[in-house]
């Protein structure tokens, strides 16, 4: 269980990193905190001829209060978010989500940008960021672009990032103090990936109203628009949610349907009460 031979670069600017990626012609990979990538390299289930470690790029570690949104550099660690360094514009939701990812030692290295770019279907940040209506900033050799997180997450372990692009920042629109949120994560034990994750978010002031679930079983984060109306003004029961799960995801096993239904219902209930 040792990583294969590779080349290693640790540039200190985004431009330099992009240049190396371009040169790598698809065989170079960005290394952020490495908490998913390095285990996969050790297991030799992921490969990279070249690693481009973005840990030395100062600007990617910045947390910025940008007026109507908070801008998190891609290599801001989960632990910094857990410790409240983002400022609290989300009723404690960011700290809650961050603090329940894996373990502190992992959170000290693992980054929000790395989590989004890795696109593990069971990861927490994609669900939370879609729920909060966040956008990602992407830098490429041909300039930069911005995408909503739900468009950025394309599929299991697949994002909208091109081989020569880097995810540089996550911009989360500030919520009002009236924000109500719930983040339900059913897991086998502390620190484990969720078997089912559901987030419900409602901000009557901004109009943000989202219901999102994620897990390996459902192939990554999914918005449940069918339930978002119910979150605002309707009643929801298990049958309606089960129906929404089937209509959104397709047919799942009885166990999987049940745990996603329950997590979604609990999330919605918590926000509504």
């Amino acid at each position: 269980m040792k990583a294969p031979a590779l080349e290693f670069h640790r540039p200190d600017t985004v431009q330099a990193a992009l240049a190396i990626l371009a040169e790598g012609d698809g065989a170079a990979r960005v290394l952020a905190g490495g908490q998913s990538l390095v285990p996969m390299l050790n297991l030799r289930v992921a490969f990279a001829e070249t690693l481009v470690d973005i840990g030395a790029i100062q600007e990617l570690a910045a947390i910025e209060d940008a007026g109507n949104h908070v801008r998190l550099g891609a290599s801001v660690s989960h632990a910094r978010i857990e410790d409240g360094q983002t400022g609290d514009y989300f009723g404690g939701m960011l700290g809650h989500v961050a603090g329940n990812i894996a373990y502190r030692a992992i959170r000290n290295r693992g980054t929000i940008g790395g989590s989004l770019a890795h696109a593990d279907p069971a990861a927490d940040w994609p669900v939370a960021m879609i729920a909060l209506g966040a956008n990602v900033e992407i830098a490429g050799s041909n300039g930069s672009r911005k995408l909503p997180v739900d468009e950025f997450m394309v599929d299991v372990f697949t994002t909208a990032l091109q081989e020569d692009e880097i995810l540089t920042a996550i911009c989360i629109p500030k919520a009002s103090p009236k924000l109500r949120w719930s983040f339900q994560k059913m897991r086998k034990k502390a620190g484990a990936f969720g078997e089912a994750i559901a987030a419900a978010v409602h901000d009557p002031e901004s109009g943000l109203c989202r219901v999102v679930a994620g897990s390996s079983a459902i192939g990554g984060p999914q918005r449940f628009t069918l339930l978002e109306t119910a979150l605002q003004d309707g009643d929801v029961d298990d049958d309606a949610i089960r129906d929404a799960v089937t209509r959104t995801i397709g047919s799942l096993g009885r166990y999987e349907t049940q745990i996603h239904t329950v997590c979604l219902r609990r999330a919605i209930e918590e926000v509504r009460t």
Partner: protein
Amino acid sequence: MTTLSLTVNGRQVSTEIDPRLNLADFLRERLSLKGTHLGCEHGACGACTVLMDGMPIRSCITMAASCDGVEITTVEGYDDNKLMSRLRRAFREEHALQCGYCTPGMLATAYDIVSRLDRADENEIRAALAGCVCRCTGYRGIVRAIERCIAEKNA
């Protein structure tokens, strides 16, 4: 090969390394610091936990080459650090170790918990320990040792 300069246990180290090396293998094989143990090599068991700039990290899933300029503290590096001495005494008196394999990672984690949390009840300590597997002790002694050191800190 790639160049690496960092501080390990207070000592400046500058050397050429195979860039594929992870930090744990660098510490163990290149610096002969064998107190950092490998239990899973995928970041899940906690045995390899060391402090990087004072924060616990998994050395098995941290590339050594990513550690340029940082300060690493391994179980061999605490000298007469007061908190670590208290933790060691508490671990011994609470029978918080048996085979000793998880102990270096447990100590680094315990050091972080006691330093970071001024108040923590049993459940919070247990939650904070969730990333460290001990296959021998049943955790009771470890939890008690940490409880005790937090209490001593506030005394």
